[in-house]
């Protein structure tokens, strides 16, 4: 039996508003996120004694170098380079540190810059496998990999472009009510279907737009948060699992499928108890995979599931209520924090304009690092008001 997360909470969801391109470095974005956390919590810099940092473009620095950059002296520090799984994993690390007393207040921040050429450079040097076995094929990066997954998923499970489109369209509706989303125009299913192909069967709106931005939240003891009068949320359960099902020829499932019993067991609730879900959505097919692997429907029925449900913030299955990365933008590693920060907002009543009614529990899922032909990292957390 795993120890519970009793007594540890999440608070102070912050977002440094995204921009398509930035001439600033990742340090600027991360410093802004840290500063916003202090502002939102009224904490002094020295009171934050734990720090996790996630970023692709912070190179050549890591978390340790960043401490000197912003002049902090934490007694607990972690660098979490897990891309889209960073948010869940940072939370897991931080929560245990706070429970054990290794740190009192941990700032979890993620951010990346996006110069006009940084996406290309990130792709070219993403991983050894990507450099050896994907980038030389012209695809560089995840478009081709997810085109393969999407094509295979469609063939195996009979999903149609409209099903993916339904998800994108609903998320855009959510994004129109999220002030930081980069996409400000409504998206219709016709526009989705008639958009130009990027890597067949992927169309333009299946692909996230790289941008600059940062996200952050605090992990601290419940007593402390209450004393500070900070709105907070509880942590009921978490999982992570990496490089799962490595023998599958194509990725149709990931670590969630192995760990979901552990997740719901620890949280003491089931998928039916979630008031909203924040999936990692760099491509819609991955959201379907999470919906299946996390037990909202059977394997292969993700398309039928989204067809039968209403996915907007006010629907019967609110999904990616701030628009997800597909409509908010993908700010590098901050993309792995977007759902977590939104879930804290939803559960503390701070999601003005898109507030899920009576939101008591939410599920946040992370997925990251397309090392070669598939995403390796996966994780999930269940939060409660």
């Amino acid at each position: 039996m795993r120890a519970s997360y009793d007594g540890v909470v999440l608070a102070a969801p912050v977002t440094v508003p995204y921009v398509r391109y930035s001439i600033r470095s990742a340090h600027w974005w991360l410093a802004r996120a840290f500063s916003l956390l202090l502002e939102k919590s009224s904490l002094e810099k020295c009171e934050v004694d734990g720090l996790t940092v996630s970023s692709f473009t912070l190179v050549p620095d890591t978390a340790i170098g960043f401490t000197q950059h912003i002049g902090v002296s934490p007694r607990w520090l972690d660098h979490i380079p897990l891309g889209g799984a960073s948010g869940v994993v940072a939370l897991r690390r931080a929560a245990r540190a706070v429970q054990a007393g290794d740190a009192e207040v941990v700032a979890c921040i993620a951010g990346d810059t996006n110069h006009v050429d940084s996406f290309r450079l990130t792709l070219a040097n993403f991983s050894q496998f990507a450099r050896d076995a994907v980038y030389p094929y012209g695809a560089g990066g995840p478009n081709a990999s997810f085109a393969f997954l999407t094509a295979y998923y469609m063939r195996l499970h009979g999903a149609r472009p409209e099903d993916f489109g339904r998800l994108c369209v609903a998320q855009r509706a959510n994004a129109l009510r999220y002030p930081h989303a980069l996409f400000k125009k409504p998206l219709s299913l016709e526009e989705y279907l008639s958009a130009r192909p990027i890597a067949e069967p992927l169309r333009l709106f299946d692909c996230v737009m790289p941008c600059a931005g940062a996200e952050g939240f605090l992990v601290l003891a419940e007593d402390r948060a209450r004393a500070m009068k900070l709105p907070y949320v509880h942590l009921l359960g978490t999982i992570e699992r990496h490089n799962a099902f490595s023998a599958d020829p194509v990725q149709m499932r990931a670590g969630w499928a192995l760990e979901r019993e552990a997740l719901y067991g620890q949280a003491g609730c089931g998928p039916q108890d979630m008031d909203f879900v924040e999936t990692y959505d760099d491509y819609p097919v991955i959201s379907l995979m999470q919906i299946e692997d996390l037990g909202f429907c059977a394997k292969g029925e993700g398309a039928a599931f989204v067809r039968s449900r209403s996915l907007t913030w006010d629907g019967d299955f609110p999904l990616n209520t701030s628009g997800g990365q597909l409509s908010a933008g993908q700010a590098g590693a901050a993309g792995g924090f977007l759902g977590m920060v939104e879930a804290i907002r939803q559960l503390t009543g701070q999601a003005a304009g898109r507030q899920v009614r009576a939101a008591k529990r939410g599920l946040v899922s992370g997925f990251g690092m397309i090392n070669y032909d598939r995403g390796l990292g996966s994780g999930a957390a269940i939060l409660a008001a």
Partner: protein
Amino acid sequence: MKLKRKNPVLRTRLPTLPPAARSRVALGLTAAAALGRFELQHCMQCGAVQYPPREACQHCLSIELKWKADAGAGELLAATVLHHSNDLFFRERLPWRLGLIRLESGPTVVAHLHARVPAAPAPVHVTARLDRAGQAVLVALPDKETSDMAEDRQLREFSCDPKLRKVLVTDGKSAVGQALVRALAAAGPELIWVGYAEPWKKFAGFDELKSIPQVTLVPLDITDSKNVRELAAEIGGKVDILVNNAEHHRTFGIGNRHGVETARAEMDVNYFGLLRLAQEFGPAMRSRGADGLASAVAWVNLLSIYALANFPAHGTFSASKAAAQSLAQCLRAEMRPAGVRVINVFPGPIDDEWNQLLLPPKVSPAALAAALVKALREGVEDVYPGDVAQEWLERWRDNPKALEKELSS
């Protein structure tokens, strides 16, 4: 049939290359592909086959990994057509088709996908080819060969097929040269220039060469700098494939002949001849690396297996070929930015007059020519035609010092 050539008045595109960076361990794929082989890492402990290349076996963690031939049979699981790329080379060539393939040997691989492979699921044959950057990539072909397979737009980016191209063969007087011209002519080039030294002397086979419709005979003596320069000025900007087969071969070592004149003559053709050609024809070919569908693609050197290790009975000839091989490596590096492949052919003893006293097996000029055309079609970088060459290669790869001792005994 002629390919439509670019209007010469218009600007010629500068060559671009696909991404060339690889980890050192991944160069194992390139080393095999350079010889026309498709090899994957095999674990010597547990037998697992893995890709992408790793430093340890992902199953048992053994570091005893060997590159071994893979049959290439596989199933296409999913295909995509790229309409966008961040890479210049591919941006200029979109749309581009890729496949995700499960090999029968185990791994799932990303590969360039031939247009004739039907929609997934479909059987495919995976091979490793060198791309324009000189690095190995995987290419998935239809599982059954078709006659027009080589004309695939994507495949042509990896091959140096003589079909519809313009070829220069530097020496038409030798038996090898004439076999080469015959083999190349059968491969459907637009035309073949055939060089011949001492044009005032009619040589055996002259009339037959002249009767081949694609052939134009051009006086060429690669020991004559002025002659090489003038010919390059005339046709250098049109040559797509240059085959330098001119060689001077005499049989002696050091002790049994006095003076350096013969050795110098060998060097003048075998080494300085290559240098002259490279200096005069190289720049023009480099500038035409991206000149439409019939761009400059390949430079072929006829070297010798003796370039790897000296054969004392033909000692000075061996030395001149070793020098030529070293220079060819330099040429390869200089041609690479243009995507023009330098192919080195390392035959064992050729069945010609200068190897009269050598015991068989010897490679016939026709077999050598066939191997060279095949290498162009498959884009191979190093060619070892014939049984003797293959055996020397294996001995040399196994233990270069042992080969030296064997040759000197």
